[in-house]
């Protein structure tokens, strides 16, 4: 030992700070033997950090892609839109004062074959000569857009397929025959106004005027793309001032404004939500990996017991010991973080290369410093959270280990500052996860659920060991050995149950929730749910429509309500843009909402506060608001709200709050006005049709054909088709969640691999003794397989119970749909559990069976 070592290892005086250089020097010497035993530690940190960094980078790449494509997506530098009402000459003049403009109109329509035998719900977009201001509309066969539009409409290929038509054929739209003059290959601004209800039909606004679809109150969105002139198109300041000018000039018009810097706030918000949610999943993987981190540190300290005892016998105090090992843990954590960040940087590029073409927005890969820092902080905090406790126990090792090995087993609690540091680290991690989320309560529930599940599995692991120890020894030696191994002090029960339990529970919960949703969505629709929604029925035509339906199907029932689209402008004296509502209520404030008026409380609604206006009410304008949303938006009886309808601001006072059943799929409106409020507004009717149960499909189709023929301008949406379309999107989301959830399982597998590696020496020694006593390899293999199967089955059993319970709570208590027990989901969990434990354990068993006996029998 050098002189300086001798000097500095002397017990430091009370309260004197530890000199870090000594800790680093000693730590470096400790680490000369490499990172043996820390591979799992590094892998666990790296996996979690990689997932969080990669998710952040990918979301960032998509947001940048969205911004870069901003001009193309909105078809200009600024885009303003409004339902129902086309821009007035004054409004148009204001727009033209800022730059070049292009006017488009979008709506849902029914496209029919000329003989009305086939029909399809489609998305119509009419354009002017200036369209597109930015980008290029690509048609198949290099047809030019202007030429095609001069001869008719261009359509997406699926429309040709569904109606059995070709280019040159005609189809019926409203009351006009439309000739197909081209096929759309790529629409430059498709992302912004696609409703995803059906294939696109695009023609000139001149043609739209001939179809008879342009009627007052029709559900048409008018959009104006504005391209700034001169330098303005590249200058953020000019963009800001142009936007501000438009906002000022058109403030009373009820327009929604977006600009190229944030072309789709909704897509950006969705990406941000997805990033936050997947980050929580990544954090779960990191925390499950924390079990592996804790195991690795515990084993490392255990292997260094004699070294610690020697250092103490030479005068090192507890703080020195703690610092020396903390330096090592920090160094290893940094390596794990570096590996994770490298992976997080590479993965988005790999995904872009593999799946980039499938994304609606081309991702722009760039280094996102924020997500790298967030991933690193999470990695560091989790590593500290799971290392501090076992490091603290290193201090409990006494120098007596050097004389009697067994006395030095570190037991008991670490010093209180270390326990406090562990608690603070956990708290910081929790607060960071909660407050970096837009929906803190979701993150809080998630954290609480995860903590509860980990604690439960920790307890269950001990329970399995405890119970196994008390099971009477079975007569079959293989089973006895298997149970003995599970119950042994270094047995695998606790690690297997804890490491795989959380991931499996998550998979079970997701699979069961998915199965229940699929059953709910593809099974029977809610009782009394309508079969069709019919839009844009002219007000005076309701009776004729009823008689057409009654003539085709006896027993069909209709419900009707006038419907307009309006945008909330002010709530209780505050402008909507200034409000910060909870995430669940944001949708009400964004874009247009359907609004109606009625004399009576509609069927399915119940007034829970305040009073309904009477029939023929003629007092000040009143409105009825949905109770839950009113609560979330801070609205109450007597508050005034302002809605822009058809370009006109209409204010009304909240006179009552209603509860309504969204799940019924009936006609539901957030806002119902007293009829006198909207008396002057031209509106069409919305109707629902309930067909008799077990109606033949042919009869249903015939009724819809008759409806379409009699009312060429109305649009009928089949509820079943809409639900199926939602189901498809939902199943894609569930697949993404399942993939993300399997990362947690991968972290669990890493922990298990680490635990198996630690237990390997004991297992080999046991096997060697069994062989020495006459056991064949088949017998040892059978004992191992039994042990793995028992552990896997018990873990899967717990995961099925807990995951099933979580899914049951979420489905029946939160989402309110019936819980369906899916046996495939149960068997999947069991299968994954068995496969992971048997494969990972099996690799160890192969080594056990191949091991030479003598080194183990002689070495002790």
């Amino acid at each position, binding site marked *: 030992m050098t002189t300086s070592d001798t000097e500095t290892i002397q017990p430091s005086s009370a309260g004197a700070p530890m000199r870090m250089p000594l800790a680093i020097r000693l730590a470096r010497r400790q680490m000369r033997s490499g990172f043996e035993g820390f591979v799992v530690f590094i892998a666990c940190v790296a996996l979690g950090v990689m997932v969080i960094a990669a998710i952040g980078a990918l979301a960032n790449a998509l947001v940048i892609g969205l911004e870069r494509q901003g001009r193309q997506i909105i078809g200009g530098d600024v885009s303003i839109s409004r339902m129902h009402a086309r821009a007035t000459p004054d409004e148009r003049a204001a727009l033209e004062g800022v730059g070049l403009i292009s006017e488009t109109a979008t709506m849902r329509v029914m496209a029919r074959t000329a003989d009305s035998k086939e029909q399809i719900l489609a998305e119509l977009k009419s354009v002017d000569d200036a369209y597109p201001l930015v980008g290029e509309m690509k048609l198949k066969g290099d047809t030019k857009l202007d030429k095609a539009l001069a001869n008719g409409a261009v359509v997406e290929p699926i429309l040709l397929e569904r109606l059995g038509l070709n280019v040159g054929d005609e189809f019926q739209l409203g009351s006009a025959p439309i000739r197909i003059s081209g096929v759309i290959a790529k629409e430059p601004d498709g992302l912004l106004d696609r409703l995803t209800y059906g294939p696109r039909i695009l023609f000139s606004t001149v043609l739209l005027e001939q179809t008879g679809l342009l009627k007052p109150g029709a559900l048409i969105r008018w959009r104006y793309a504005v391209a700034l002139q001169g330098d303005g198109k590249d200058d953020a300041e000019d963009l800001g001032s142009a936007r501000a000018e438009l906002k000022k000039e058109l403030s009373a018009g009820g327009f929604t404004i977006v600009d190229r810097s944030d072309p789709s706030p909704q897509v950006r918000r969705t990406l941000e939500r997805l990033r936050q949610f997947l980050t929580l999943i990544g954090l779960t993987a990191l925390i499950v990996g924390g079990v592996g981190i804790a195991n690795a540190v515990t084993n490392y300290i255990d292997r260094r017991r004699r070294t610690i005892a020697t250092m103490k016998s030479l005068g090192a105090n507890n703080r020195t010991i703690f610092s020396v090992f903390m330096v090592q843990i920090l160094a290893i954590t940094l390596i794990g973080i570096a590996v994770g960040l490298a992976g997080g940087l590479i993965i988005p590029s790999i995904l872009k290369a593999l799946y980039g073409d499938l994304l609606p927005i081309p991702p722009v890969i760039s280094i996102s410093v924020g997500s790298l820092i967030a991933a690193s902080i999470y990695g560091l905090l989790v590593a500290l959270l799971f290392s501090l406790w076992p490091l603290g126990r290193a201090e409990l090792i006494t120098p007596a280990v050097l004389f009697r090995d067994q006395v030095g087993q570190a037991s008991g609690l670490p010093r209180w500052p270390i326990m406090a540091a562990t608690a603070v680290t956990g708290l910081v991690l929790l607060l960071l996860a909660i407050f970096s989320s837009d929906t803190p309560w979701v993150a809080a529930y998630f954290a609480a659920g995860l903590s509860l599940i980990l604690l439960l599995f920790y307890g269950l692991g001990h329970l399995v060991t405890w119970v196994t120890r008390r099971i009477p020894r079975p007569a079959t030696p293989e089973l006895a050995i298997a149970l003995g*191994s599970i119950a042994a002090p270094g047995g695998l029960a606790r690690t297997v149950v804890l490491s795989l339990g959380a991931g499996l529970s998550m998979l079970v919960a997701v699979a069961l929730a998915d199965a229940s949703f699929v059953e709910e969505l593809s099974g029977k629709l809610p009782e009394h749910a309508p079969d069709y929604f019919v839009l844009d029925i002219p007000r005076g035509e309701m009776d004729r429509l009823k008689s057409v339906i009654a003539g085709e199907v006896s027993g069909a029932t209709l419900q009707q309500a006038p419907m307009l689209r309006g945008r909330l402008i002010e709530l209780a004296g505050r402008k909507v843009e200034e409000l910060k509502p909870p995430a669940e209520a944001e949708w009400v404030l964004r874009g247009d909402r359907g609004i109606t008026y009625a004399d009576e409380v509609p069927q399915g609604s119940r007034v829970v506060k305040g009073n309904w206006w009477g029939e023929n009410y003629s007092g000040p304008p009143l409105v009825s608001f949905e109770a839950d949303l009113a609560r979330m938006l801070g609205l109450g009886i007597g508050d005034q709200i302002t809605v822009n309808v058809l370009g006109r601001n209409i204010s009304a006072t909240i006179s009552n709050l209603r509860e309504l059943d969204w799940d019924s799929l009936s006609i539901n409106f957030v806002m119902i006005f007293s009829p006198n409020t909207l008396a002057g507004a031209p509106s069409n009717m919305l109707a629902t049709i309930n067909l008799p149960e077990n109606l033949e499909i042919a009869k249903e189709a015939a009724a819809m054909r008759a409806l379409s023929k009699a009312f060429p301008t109305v649009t009928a949406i089949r509820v079943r088709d809409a639900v199926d379309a939602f189901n498809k999107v939902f199943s894609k989301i569930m697949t993404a969640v399942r993939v993300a959830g399997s990362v947690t399982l991968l972290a669990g597998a890493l922990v298990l691999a680490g635990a198996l590696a630690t237990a390997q020496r004991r297992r080999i020694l046991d096997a060697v*003794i069994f062989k020495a006593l006459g056991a*064949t390899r088949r017998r040892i293999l059978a004992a191992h397989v039994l042990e793995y199967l028992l552990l896997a089955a018990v873990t899967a059993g717990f995961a099925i119970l807990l995951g099933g319970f979580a899914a049951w709570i979420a489905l029946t208590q939160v989402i309110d749909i019936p819980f369906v027990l899916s046996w495939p989901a149960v068997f999947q969990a069991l299968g994954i559990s068995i496969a992971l434990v048997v494969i990972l354990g099996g690799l160890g068993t192969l080594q056990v069976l191949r091991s030479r006996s003598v080194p183990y029998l002689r070495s*002790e």
Partner: protein
Amino acid sequence: MNEPIIKLDGLRLSLQSRAGTVEILRGIDLQIAHGQSVAVLGPSGSGKTSLLMVIAGLERSTGGAVTVEGADLTALDEDGLALLRGEKIGIVFQSFHLVPSMTALENVALPLEFQGRGEAFEAARELLGEVGLEHRLHHFPAELSGGEQQRVAIARALSTRPRLILADEPTGNLDGETGRQIIELLFSLHRRSKATLVLVTHDEALSRRCQRTVRMGDGHILSDDLVSAA
């Protein structure tokens, strides 16, 4: 003359190490008769424990012939060797090598269970009584003293009534008094069982209690003396 229980002809054992090939046993010729007690004596590194491991079938020779109870060990696969040990050989290790997750009773019963004998636990209980541990049947190894652990190991080695008992420094990890008690026990059981006993030791006094002493050095047999016919 009866066929010897152990017959070694030109037995060689060499192992690979980083420094190259190490010759552990350099051509051993040895025959041991049924019922004999033999002490294998020699300093550390002389090859005595390796010799014992080869006889037990736990280490494979790299040359020569090894026959135990008429079986050619070089012709048996690993499972064949395990079955031979289970039926005919009992081994006592210096470090006891009890299964830590099993009680004393379970440890002793285990070889009998491997052979599918129904009376495994009755026989184990009886044997533990014979070694003076009837009050420690349900204790785990960690709850027993070193001497008690070695008694359990001896009971386990004798549980299948083997024809051959191999003991590798059975008192090496025990204090003097406990070691003496263990040796008394081992010899008394050997006398009663009439099995062959091969005892590896570096203790001259202990070797004198055996009928025959084989001295080893550097992988060779240096001397082979019949001490007594007792």
